[in-house]
């Protein structure tokens, strides 16, 4: 059976071709492996290398996608030696010196995932087949991340996931060619539970509303098991349709159940609407079992907080990164992003920026764009200075392990970006888990082998 045959258009695009009507047919099959010069999909030739930024530009996550794209453009600028260098200066690895990646100038192509896996794969395939992209990154939902990651595995390019929080991405759907810097549902649960226990006590009755799809399931499971381990009781867990906009009929019965805490396993528009509805029902003014009623949102993002407005005040949740962090890396990133665009970056922007840098650095360290070499360079790689403290890219599942932020809606925001405040930085040790953890697909989950394509 022949190997994958994503084209080597990058070769053509960047090399100077002889004019005239000279026909040079080439047939690609497994034998190309032997061609030591390339040996992998879209091996860059000439002075440039092309990256593919695949983000939602239409649909509900378009604003998040726009922020990711800003971060990518900034990262490319820094990699090519422009701007103030951002986190290049604080990154513990010093291979990135503003001369591009492996000495090649970085170019990029963009595409629209529409937050649909079909569209995302179409867009990614066009980047690989048409534009000769050597690495694909981006995305704002787990469905898209899993789909594009599987595609990159088949095509033999590296996938650096953008914002994807479901356990599955590096759990049961993990792939050798795919890497995730963002945290996941398990980590949210593990980080949140102690903070919740400290603030709300250990004898709470929780009511879950869960978005009825994979990410919702993993998040509910993670939060549920870690809060129950703290002594909380789960009164009920109700699944809500993804397409639901008015959550009143789900929220109204919460008080009847005798629960005193509502956990909203929702993201994006779902979360904005369910939280708005919950506040509207006056849940937070109520007293149940002699305790103040509380609401928890496991996964926060600043854009969601903005959409929910004043409703987020005082509500706990977790996040991957926040611009108010004061370590050198974060400060450098916020400074260069803020100077360029006029407002602070979101966590989606941060993870995308970091992923681009990590990829570039891995190529430099490996001295090759070959995906397998990059995989080798990233696996088990320890680094710091990128805003999350000391971080490990674990070899077993290609998941980054780092501190997790527990945040709370700010009572007195000074601007429309200043909506969350950091309550606690949960140390990495507390959110770690075994690679074959049952929530991660158990023992059956496997990375497979890296695929260089060609």
């Amino acid at each position, binding site marked *: 059976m022949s190997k994958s045959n994503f084209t080597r258009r990058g070769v053509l695009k960047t090399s100077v071709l002889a004019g005239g009507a000279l026909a040079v047919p080439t047939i690609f099959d497994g034998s190309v492996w032997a061609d030591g010069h390339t040996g992998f999909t879209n091996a860059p030739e000439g002075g440039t290398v092309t990256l593919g930024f695949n983000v939602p530009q239409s649909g509900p996550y378009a604003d998040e996608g726009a922020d990711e794209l800003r971060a990518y453009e900034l990262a490319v600028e820094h990699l090519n030696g422009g701007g103030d260098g951002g986190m290049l200066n604080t990154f513990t690895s010093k291979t990135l010196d503003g001369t591009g990646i492996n000495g090649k100038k970085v170019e990029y192509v963009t595409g629209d995932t529409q937050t649909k896996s079909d569209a995302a794969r179409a867009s990614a395939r066009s980047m690989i087949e048409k534009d000769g992209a050597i690495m694909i990154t981006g995305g704002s939902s787990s469905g898209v991340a899993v789909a594009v990651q599987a595609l990159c595995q088949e095509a033999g390019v590296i996938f650096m996931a953008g914002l994807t929080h479901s356990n599955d991405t590096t759990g049961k759907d993990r792939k050798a060619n795919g890497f995730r810097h963002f945290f996941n549902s398990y980590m949210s649960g593990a980080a949140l539970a102690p903070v919740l226990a400290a603030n709300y006590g250990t004898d709470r009755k929780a009511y879950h509303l869960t978005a009825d799809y994979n990410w919702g399931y993993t998040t509910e499971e993670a939060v549920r098991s870690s809060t129950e381990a703290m002594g909380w009781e789960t009164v009920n867990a109700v699944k809500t349709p993804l397409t639901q906009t008015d959550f009143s009929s789900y929220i109204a019965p919460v008080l009847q159940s005798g629960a005193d805490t509502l956990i909203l396993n929702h993201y994006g528009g779902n979360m904005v609407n369910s939280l708005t509805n919950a506040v509207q029902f006056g849940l937070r003014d109520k007293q149940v079992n002699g305790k103040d009623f509380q609401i928890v949102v496991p996964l926060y993002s600043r854009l969601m907080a903005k*959409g929910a407005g004043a409703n987020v005040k005082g509500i706990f949740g977790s996040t991957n990164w926040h611009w108010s962090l004061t370590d050198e890396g974060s400060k450098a990133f916020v400074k260069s992003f803020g100077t360029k665009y006029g407002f602070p970056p979101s966590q989606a922007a941060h993870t995308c920026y970091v992923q681009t840098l990590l990829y570039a650095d891995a190529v430099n360290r490996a001295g090759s764009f070959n995906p397998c070499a990059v995989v080798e360079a990233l696996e088990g790689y320890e680094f710091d200075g990128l805003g999350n403290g000391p971080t490990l890219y674990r070899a077993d599942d290609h998941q980054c392990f780092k501190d997790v932020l527990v945040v709370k809606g700010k009572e007195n925001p000074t601007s429309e*970006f200043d909506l969350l405040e950091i309550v606690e930085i949960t140390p990495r040790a507390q959110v770690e888990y075994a690679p074959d953890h049952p929530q991660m697909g158990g023992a059956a989950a496997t990375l497979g082998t890296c695929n260089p394509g060609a």
Partner: protein
Amino acid sequence: MEAIILQILNGLDKGSAYALIALGLTLIFGTLGVVNFAHGALFMIGAFCAVTLQRILSLSYEVVDDTRTDFLGNPLKVDVPYVNGWFGPEMGQTIIEWSVPLAILFAIPVMMFVGYAMERGLIKHFYKRPHADQILVTFGLAIVLQEVIKAFYGANPIPTPAPPAFTGSFDFGALIGFDPNQIIYPYWRLIYFTFAAFVITAVFAFLQFTTFGMVVRAGMADRETVGLLGIDIDKRFTMMFAIAAVVAGLAGVMYTPINSPNYHMGMDFLVLSFVVVVVGGMGSLPGAVLAGFVLGILESFASMAEVIDIIPGINQIIIYLVAIIILLTRPRGLMGRRGVMED
């Protein structure tokens, strides 16, 4: 028992949103015979009337506050709305907080104009075209409208809270003798329901008791004959389109505190409102309203945890399942007329 009362209340509220949108859609269909896929967009534009008014009222000038710094460490620039300067901070803040109710006054002329322009500029040319063409052109228009809104306001939902006086909920259960905290109901939803009932009544009264309404109803039944009577039915139908746009727009304005508006909220409601209209029966105004409430209440019941436990996923499909059952047992929906849109 409490759970059931609660879900009926929720259902009435959901139903009033459905009914309002479906009412406008049926008005346009019944009078003009046009399948308007841009009706959801009208709802969305209504909601963004509220957003726009909020933005206008909060137009600000910057004051530098040296005591605080922004995220880059520069002195913080604080936005002060002009209204605060004119009416004093307290009054100014109150005006901004009341922007949603105020937006009703703002939305009526805007939606009237939007409806008028749409009908005269585009829809008018499609009366005699096949329904397929009407769908394509109004769908194209809906996409253009929502993309324009997205270009101006972004894709993220925009919080538009109700005035503080109407936030929070009251204990309806305690009023009728149940234990406290069993049946709570938000003030704003009560207002929404009342408002919807008022608008629906007003539309019906208008059609029932005014000469204008009589002519329009006659036109709905038999356009050609009314045209033969020497009445300029077209002009009245244009007005009806504008009225339907206003109804959709007001439904949108009042909906903003319930769900933060975003550019695709029209599309979210579009399919649902078509289902409501068809279940009610094409061309039947009371049918549309009835179907709106029936589907709203059934949707609420299907979302009860006890129901989902028995039939998993029922909350995902209830509306469509009910639509199928109703259409199979009642060929023309709840109150449809024979021969309308059957070919």
